[in-house]
């Protein structure tokens, strides 16, 4: 893993405070270890993050990030409601 960028910091537009690139790569997603879906949005101006991801993350993860279409918030809400209800039934 190339860690040159890990300590670079920027203000996270979602959290409203400073975060490191390592946070965005390793913790920003829906579960620990998953990258934030806005990783490319936020870091592309700093360095060639697409090339970085391709060199350092599993191909499937990178493909998801690169192909990520803007997703209506309502979709993720509905998914989370369904998941919470499923957990309740279990």
């Amino acid at each position, binding site marked *: 893993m190339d860690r040159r960028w890990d300590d670079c910091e920027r203000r996270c537009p979602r959290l*409203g405070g400073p975060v490191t690139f390592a946070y965005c790569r390793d913790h920003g997603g829906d579960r620990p270890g998953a990258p934030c879906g806005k990783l490319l949005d936020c870091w592309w101006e700093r360095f060639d993050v697409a090339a970085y991801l391709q060199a350092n993350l599993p191909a499937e993860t990178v493909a998801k990030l690169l192909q990520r279409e803007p997703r209506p918030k309502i979709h993720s809400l509905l998914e989370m409601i369904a998941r919470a209800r499923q957990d309740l039934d279990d």
Partner: protein
Amino acid sequence: MTNRKILLTEDEMPRQWYNILADIKLNPPLGPDGNPIKPEDLAPVFPMKLIEQEVSTQRWIDIPDAVQSVYRIWRPSPLVRALSLEKVLDTPARIYFKNESVSPPGSHKPNTAVPQAYYNKISGIERMTTETGAGQWGCALSFACSQFGLECKVFMVRVSFDQKPYRKSMMEVWNGRCVASPSNETRAGREILAKFPDTPGSLGIAISEAIEAAVSDPSGKTRYSLGSVLNHVMLHQTIIGLEAKLQLAKVGDYPDVIIGCAGGGSNFAGLAFPFVLDKINGKAIEIYPVEPAACPTLTKAPFVYDHGDTAGYTPLLPMHSLGHSFMPPPLHAGGLRYHGMAPTVSQLVDEGLLTPKSVNQLESYAAGITLARSEGIIPAPETTHALATVIEEAQKAKEEGREKVILFNWSGHGLLDLGAYDKFLAGQLSNFELPEGVIAESEKVFAHYPKPAHLKRG
């Protein structure tokens, strides 16, 4: 003497919100299965009145008396003529701002937190849950719930929880309960903590926890609340622009340019949507949603001759460049990052009614300092993005010798974000360095290109 503040009396406060869905065509919200969303799909997390507002195409929606009563704690918010800023910039522009920092939590967020709490209360709900990043939204909802006697639980992303302890204090003063996410209070949180006890959390996890906490309440008396993006949130925020219109009319002015920062879209929409209606009806107004860029290209990348396109077809031009093969994601083509943006704002950009702008972090903080030292209020970091564009427009007006009227939204104060100002003033926000080797790598691309001269005037 010119008045700084243009005030409305409480009796003059608008009694209806403006619903932009009456005037634009928006693709109906579809579920992940591709079928239109049914009200019952959202009922586990929102009361029916808010679901109705989410899909309503009625242009004007009454603001309930109980909501107006709470709004009056700080509303109507002042419209301020930025006389000191105008003087500092020596601009012929007349600059006005809506001061939303005067609300109890210090931002525009209670404009929707209050009606959301109200509609939950009258639906028999006793508890609300939500997530918060920086803590502004958690504070706003805690405040709103306290006004209507509701319990409030806020899942605050661990990394922010540790960075901003006073946000938790504010929530708890308003009787909200703020827990760091992931927490042991939900199944989702417990599972994550079991595997990753030191995780700093994420907004996605916090939302999952807040939704689970609402859905899993066996009494059925808990609901979830969201402070951005959704249509009903934009609707409630339009009180900002509606007041501004009345206030500007009092002094016989009307904006040529409207500027707001665009994160989830709500403070921008709140100011802009009532004016978008005028633009739809033929008024000539420029409306700019402004979002942050992190671009260090100008200051950090080498000054070289490079192609303007990735294929290398365009002429070689002198520029600061990280190399023409450097590929930004196509999403940036419009200049606005659409992820997480309100669908209504995205739609208006798509229709050409809004012109997105972006500004970098250093410009933003510099503008924030200029405004704090002229108008006195320390702006929230997100507000500073709008301020940088305001200054740019005011300077443009000076160059053009035009008495342009600029209106912007001062969406919140930054009194709990002073760490960011410390860093800016200490020069630490400008110390981003491209790691060793990267510039050298970039320069390999340009090895056989001519080098531009660094020309200076005089």
